[in-house]
């Protein structure tokens, strides 16, 4: 689910950047540092309102000459939830299940969470899950998945999903 989230970040700036455009640099740095990253809880998609961001006064860190700025900013973040239904693209399949990417979130759909009529077919090229009908799940297939659980590590997340429900599965 997407949220607008207010966050704060401390940015250190090398003295090279001290100058009239320092704000511009900070802003640039913020975008660079933050956009597209994962906090372990959510993904930061996009930094908003770059004009109204609130920069603190710079403070030179004793002993290193870099200046520290605290920036309050607002960003669009995406946080996957248990039970959320999302669309994904299959990144690989193996006997144990399907790996799919929900945007930046790698997700695993175990064979236990695949309807029993969709079976692993190792003889197909490429190997795939298929019900021998119109549902074929192989690399690149678009899937609709229900997130069953998420795990967060430092700077990354992982989820397991299910397609064993109505309206889930190939798109």
């Amino acid at each position, binding site marked *: 689910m997407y949220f607008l989230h207010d966050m704060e970040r401390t940015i250190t700036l090398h*003295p090279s950047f001290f100058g009239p455009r320092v704000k511009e640099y900070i802003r640039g740095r913020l975008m660079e540092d933050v956009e597209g990253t994962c906090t372990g809880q959510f993904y930061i998609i996009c930094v908003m309102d770059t004009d109204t961001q609130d920069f603190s006064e710079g403070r030179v860190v004793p002993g290193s000459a870099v200046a520290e700025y605290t920036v309050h900013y607002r960003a669009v973040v995406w946080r996957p939830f248990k039970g959320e239904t999302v669309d994904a693209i299959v990144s690989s399949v193996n006997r144990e299940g399907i*790996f799919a990417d929900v945007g930046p979130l790698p997700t*695993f759909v175990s064979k*236990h969470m695949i309807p029993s009529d969709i079976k692993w077919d190792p003889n197909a090229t490429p190997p795939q899950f298929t019900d021998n009908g119109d549902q074929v799940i192989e690399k690149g297939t678009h899937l609709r998945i229900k997130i069953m659980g998420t*795990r967060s590590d430092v700077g990354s997340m*992982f989820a397991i999903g299910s397609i064993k429900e109505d309206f889930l599965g190939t798109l």
Partner: protein
Amino acid sequence: MSSAALLDQDFGSESEDDNFNPAPAEDSDNDAAGDSDEEVNVRTNGNGAEQRRRPSEQQAHDDDEDDDNDAEGSFANGRQSNGHGTRVSADEEDEGTKGNGAGRLNATENGGDDEDEDEEEEEEEEDEEEAISGRPRKRARRDPRNQFLDVEAEVDEEDEGDEEDEGDQADPFIAETHPDDVADLPDGAETDDRRHRELDRQRERAQQMDAEKQAQLLREKYGRRTATNADAVTVPKRLLLPSVDDPSIWGVKCKQGKEREIVFALTKRIEERAGTKNPMPVISAFERGGTMIGYIYIEARRQADIHTALEGIMNVYPRTSIVMVPIKEMPDLLRVTKSESLVPGGYVRIKRGKYAGDLAQIDEVETNGLMASLRIVPRLDYGQAEDNNAPMVDGGIRGEAQKRKRQNAVGLNNPATRPPPRLFSDVEAKKKHLKFLQQMSTFDKKHWQYMGDTYISGFLIKDFRIQHLTTENVNPTLEEVTRFTAGAEDGTENLDLSALAATLKKGTSNENYLPGDMVEVYEGEQQGVSGKAVAVRGDIVTIAVIDGELRGQNIEVPVKGLRKRFKEGDHVKVIGGSRYRDEVGMVVSIKNDTVTLLSDLSMQEITVFSKDLREASDTGVAGGLGRYDIHDLVQLDPATVGCVTKVDRESLRVLDQNGSTRSIMPSQISNKIEKRRHAVATDRNGSEIRTDDTVREIGGESKQGVILHIYRSFLFLHNREQTENSGISVVRASNVATVAAKGGRVAHGGNTGPDLNKMNPALMRNGVNGNGAMAPPKTFGRDRALDQTVTIRKGPYKGLLGIVKDTTDLEARVELHTKGKTITVPKDTLGFKDPLTGQSIDYTRFAGTRGRGGGGRGGYAGNMGGATPGREPQWQGGRTPVPMATGGRTPAWGAGGSSARTPAWSANASTARTPMWRQDAVSSNGGGRTPAYNAGADGSRTVNPYADGSRTVNPYGGSTSYGGAAGGGSRTPAWNPTATSSSYTHDPFSSRTPAHEPSSGRTPAPSYPTPQDLRPYDAPTPGKDFTTAPTPAAHPSNGYAGSTPAAIGGAPTPKFSGDAPTPFSGQPETPGWRGEADDEPSDVTFPIQQGRFLSTIFGS
């Protein structure tokens, strides 16, 4: 039904059945007493007085009952004669009187006559049926018969054995056949017609009577009964308790383990002597199984009786001590504790012998409860360990026997030497032990006899005494249990999880719940309730119920009926004794007690019992808490390293550099090799690869993965899509091609400092303009490269010599001397011969020098020359920057940044670091780089000369700063522009600024460009410094200080200082500076202070 039913009951055979049914609890007290007596008798066999007394009582009952029946019979008859109207009440009366007259006995009777509550409804129906069809038919048959036939005592088949009902049933016969009785009967009793009619009427009435009335009637009739019955249940229990009048129980010591035998012997003796002249004086004997080992209990009137009874029985010691059990404790003796019942299919452990500690499945339990036949996974070596040369006596058999003996002596039980458990294989056995092998059944191919043991389907079937088995806390692991599942012929696993779960349940003690666990009650009254454990005390868990009717309440539940509850997607950790201990993963499926989870680390699915799981924190945990973690690189021996692929409790699984996996103990690891972040290798294409790059193997298995470790020429890759070895594989660096380098590595070559390219706002500005690095200045006219003899410095033709035949802006066509072939190569990769020094220089330089030369900067040219060499190293590095060099500062910059290495340094150095420079200068093109450098330090002094040089340069360059000194005039302008334009830039680069400006396009500067570059370069050094050692602070200060500062700066400063004086000329800059300083101080609090700045300047 109503009265009809009543009537029927009186006469019906069901009632008789009820009468004699011993089981129902609602029977009267006496009956119950009788029953229990009977039960006791079954066990005791004694002919004690009590028993004798009881039968007599019973007989009394029977008599009573008989009387009763008779009475009833007459009643019935009487009733029959009466009209229907009175029937019911008469019946009631009946019961009343009976109750009064016969007391409890009658209650029985009644209970018998009428049905139990439970059966009420059934009976009702039955009755109704009977009323409609059954009875009348019977009677119709009987009565006419009586009417026309003279048969006196014909007995209806159905009524055979219905002695109890004699009274009722006999009545008609008697009444009708016996003339004497006729008088007793009401008038016309013998006339069947009347009865028929009566019946018909009854039936009609019954049908007409509405259901409600019927119900009421029934309730009246039976409602009362229930009360009595309930009473009847409670009374006997109290009465049954032993009293002083009852025989006493004595406990007698005996040999442990022989209790049961003794009791059996005693029982036998009692039976034998029963009915003889001297019957056994004991009433009963029993033992208490496991709880009171070494005692048997005997019930007798006198202690002396016990001695007589036990005379001549082995293993019991009545002489030593006999304990009389107090009356109060007697009932406890008979309390049945559910004994550990061994059920076929359950699991036990063997206590001793070759299979000590092994899990076994119960195949069969013998009825005496002493032996059990077990299925075991055999541990056989099929004679592999035999000594072939051992003397064979008697055709080997005795030798064999001896051997076995010896082996036993050595200790077959020693877990270290005993063979591993494997299913029996007849093929293996045939190899050496054909003579000991025998197929037991021709149609069952899996039934073998080998060395005296039976093997079925690969399992050893063997009898064990139960006392040699561990039946509690067996705790089979899934792994062990799965060995027993391989038996199915089709290879399917028929793991009986329920049996396993049952076994596991027995050992609940180690099932540990902690407050906070989500649990679910799956057994008992609260089945289905789930909640969170809030407290655990012994075997009782207090649960805060979270859903259902009990929501919000706290209930206490015994551990026995609990199991942990997980949901799909939960993040759990394996804690129990399973081999997956410490794995962490997410639950993907749950089936009763078993949970399948996807391990975080290995990405494999594992199945464990829910009791072995616990909710893990939501954040990932690296598995294994020991010294070695998965993915660690460890040194196995001096020549071998391996990557840990799995961490078990006591062992590690590693994949070594040769691609083989092995399990090792942590102690076998000599040390752990810390990950070297900066390890570099080259792939087959010669491009550099580092850890975290993604590479693909060329050829082989085309493995792909992210580099975990680089060890010499081996790469350890990790690929999460590969299941074997937890996704780890090993490849040779020379066999891989880069798929993606992390972060598109370009700029930094192992440079840990901040990336100056990104850090330099000036560069960024360039970036904004669209060209990241400044393009080499256009040269006009004939390309000087034409017809030059060049070496190719890069690419497949590297090292070859050739002549440039034609050029474009970027490329040159070179005719190779060797191959007689003309190729097109980028000009960058060409090495030219410097016309002056003879050294190899690259194109830009080559072209550039010339240009300058042309410029007529004579003196300077000389410098140039000097300079060039210094730089060259840099260039040679292959730094494109070169072009920039020409262009102006940027290059210098770039060079610094990209090459990063000392050369860069030197480059910069040229100015500040001048040392090198100077070195070179002095030595005139001395090739030395670093050394130069070092020298530099010393040379700082030299500097001056140099400085001068630089000054000369000034004109050109960067020296702007110096410039002040030198061609100040011209410089300054350049300067100013810079200053203004790049106001911000300055700060850091203050000294550099000038340089910048040129780049920024202070065109004027450009004219001098090259030289400038140099200068700027030099000046910029600070920048460099950053790169190398981001102590920038110092530098900036320099900048401010007007370079002088150099002095201020840390280490490098000295050099600076050297320069500083000279040049620094800073002054000119200063102005610019100041301007800026004034403008911008707000942005940054500059500790430094213009005051200082100025002072330095002035000072200098």
